[in-house]
């Protein structure tokens, strides 16, 4: 089988345009023509700065919002326009999101054990040894079941709630996990533990992980594949080691230049102004006449010109 057939999830030309206003509508292209794949047992990091559209990509994959254009394939099946409640539920059963702000993922009026009860009732009503499974998954994410289950979400810290979401993914044995900036809620001492855990689970259980982050060092450490997002465009994608070692797009190059490194200091004699990147990127698109993506080396693609957004007005 080719690489492509093994992908558990495939996004093709995924586009999301937000509109605001009633008479004079204003349009914001949050994600433009993003195509990528997620593989079982692999971590794919989606790297971008604030406003690049990385969270929107995550929400599109989770089917929390509908794309303006483009398609999403799950296990080879087109799930972009599914309306049927049961099919939708079947998809939600297979995917789990862990968010930057985990507080909004839980019903504040329910204790944690009730949240798990609902989970089983909704998805796995046949399960007998619920308590055992719950304890087991909580212990896997380093949470003490006795201390957690009888609490309300507000009595737990952000890091604990995020780990609960990972435990939920473990319980349901999901196929895809979308982790959106999860380190922001974790302090330095627990951060690496949770991240290592995430990757171990991904490898052991063959789960596909989309790791959304702005931290390039962390992206390198955790991921097999990397997607670089700039202003809604997926400017570079491929194997992590290739993208990092041989960045091709001017935006990616600038991004890597800004990473602080304890082995080497920045070259302060070189002028570095973040605003100049927009010009540099425009110049790059103008000065090459190639279209779409170019495969600069095996499994390493670079956007050579912006892909036309479909007419949405």
């Amino acid at each position: 089988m080719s690489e492509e057939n093994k992908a558990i999830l495939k996004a093709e030309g995924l586009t999301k345009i937000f509109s605001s206003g009633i008479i004079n509508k204003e349009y914001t292209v949050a994600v433009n023509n993003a195509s990528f794949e997620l593989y079982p047992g692999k971590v794919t990091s989606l790297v971008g700065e604030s406003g690049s559209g990385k969270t929107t990509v995550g929400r599109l994959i989770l089917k929390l919002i509908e794309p303006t254009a483009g398609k999403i394939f799950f296990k080879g099946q087109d799930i972009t326009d599914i309306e049927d409640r049961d099919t939708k539920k079947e998809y939600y059963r297979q995917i789990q999101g862990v968010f930057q702000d985990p507080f909004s993922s839980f019903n504040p009026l329910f204790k944690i054990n009730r949240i798990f009860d609902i989970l089983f009732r909704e998805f796995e009503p046949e399960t007998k040894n619920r308590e055992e499974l719950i304890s087991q998954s909580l212990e896997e994410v380093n949470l003490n079941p006795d201390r957690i289950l009888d609490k309300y979400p507000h009595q737990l810290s952000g890091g604990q709630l995020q780990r609960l979401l990972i435990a939920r993914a473990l319980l349901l044995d999901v196929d895809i996990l979308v982790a959106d900036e999860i380190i922001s809620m974790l302090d330095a001492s627990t951060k690496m533990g949770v991240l290592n855990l995430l990757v171990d689970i991904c490898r052991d259980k063959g789960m596909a992980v989309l790791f959304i982050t702005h931290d390039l060092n962390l992206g390198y450490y955790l991921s097999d594949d990397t997607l670089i997002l700039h202003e809604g465009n997926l400017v570079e994608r491929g194997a992590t080691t290739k993208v990092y070692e041989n960045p091709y797009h001017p935006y990616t190059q600038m991004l890597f230049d800004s990473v602080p490194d304890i082995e080497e200091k920045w070259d302060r004699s070189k002028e570095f102004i973040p605003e100049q990147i927009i010009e540099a990127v425009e110049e790059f698109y103008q000065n090459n006449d190639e279209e779409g993506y170019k495969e600069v080396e095996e499994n390493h693609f670079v956007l050579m010109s912006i892909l036309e957004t479909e007419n949405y007005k």
Partner: protein
Amino acid sequence: MADTEETVLEVKDLKAYYRVMKGDVKAVDGLNFTVRRGEILGVVGESGCGKSTLAYSLISLNKPLQHISGEANLLGQDLMKLSREEKRKLKMKNISIIPQYALDAFSPTKKIKTFIKDMVKQHGRRADKEFMDKVKTRFEIVNLSHSVLDRYSMELSGGMKQRVVMLISSLLDPDLIIADEITSALDVTSQRYVTTLLADLRDEGIIGSAIFITHDLATLYQIADRIMVMYAGRLAELGNADEIVHNPRHPYTRALINSLPRIGIQHKDERLTGIKGTPPDLTDIEEGCRFRFRCQYRTEECDKSPKMEKTHQRHYIRCWNYESVGSDKNE
């Protein structure tokens, strides 16, 4: 650099606690260090180690934070003994701060220009044409156009706001500026710009010296001349930036550096572990080294508080076993 160099700030056995209902939170508990003229001193540590408290104890002691003992001599004047009014006179001119959440501090209804004028008036300067011309040159230095003066804060990006804040804090050419987590809310590209800018302001002589506080050691290393590592309200290690990063002696510094993810290390080849355990509760702290519960080199001696040792490279360490820790460097 010679030992005779001029000192801008000398902190001697400083203790500043938060007086709260359940007791004293010993956030700064016996710190000793100096800031030399023209240097950038980096301060690094986990959240809750007292690094921001250190900044506030130097700038403005507000309840429940209280000065317990010790001195902080800024150009010969003990900041701890000054009245609020006397301290206000030093602010902006002798000592200034770029606060952590400064980006939200702008009034949304005031133009940046009005904000700057109000600010300097408070510090007894007239915002005349000459002064505004100086402001404009400063805008050029931070690579912002003059039109920013007529804009409202919400029209600026995070990186631009941070530059405006830095510009305002350094407007009266302070001898010492304290930069508290100035990069934590910014994007990677802005982080590099803002960090470099701090060093540029020092190089141009606009600010005398700086204390750069952050949790991000890799960013700190880019511009700091010396680095002070703090742990649980105390100094763990202080020395030249290169020495701290490439030849750390304190077990905590070593653990901190080893837990940094960096390009070149992947999960599948090498496992970064972080530091096991959590920092101690600062309300209820006993005698002894504060890192001992998380330290792999712990010995019996560690139940007594270690003294500050000075090695010949003017490198200060607070650890009983730093010599044996240093010797297995090439593990």
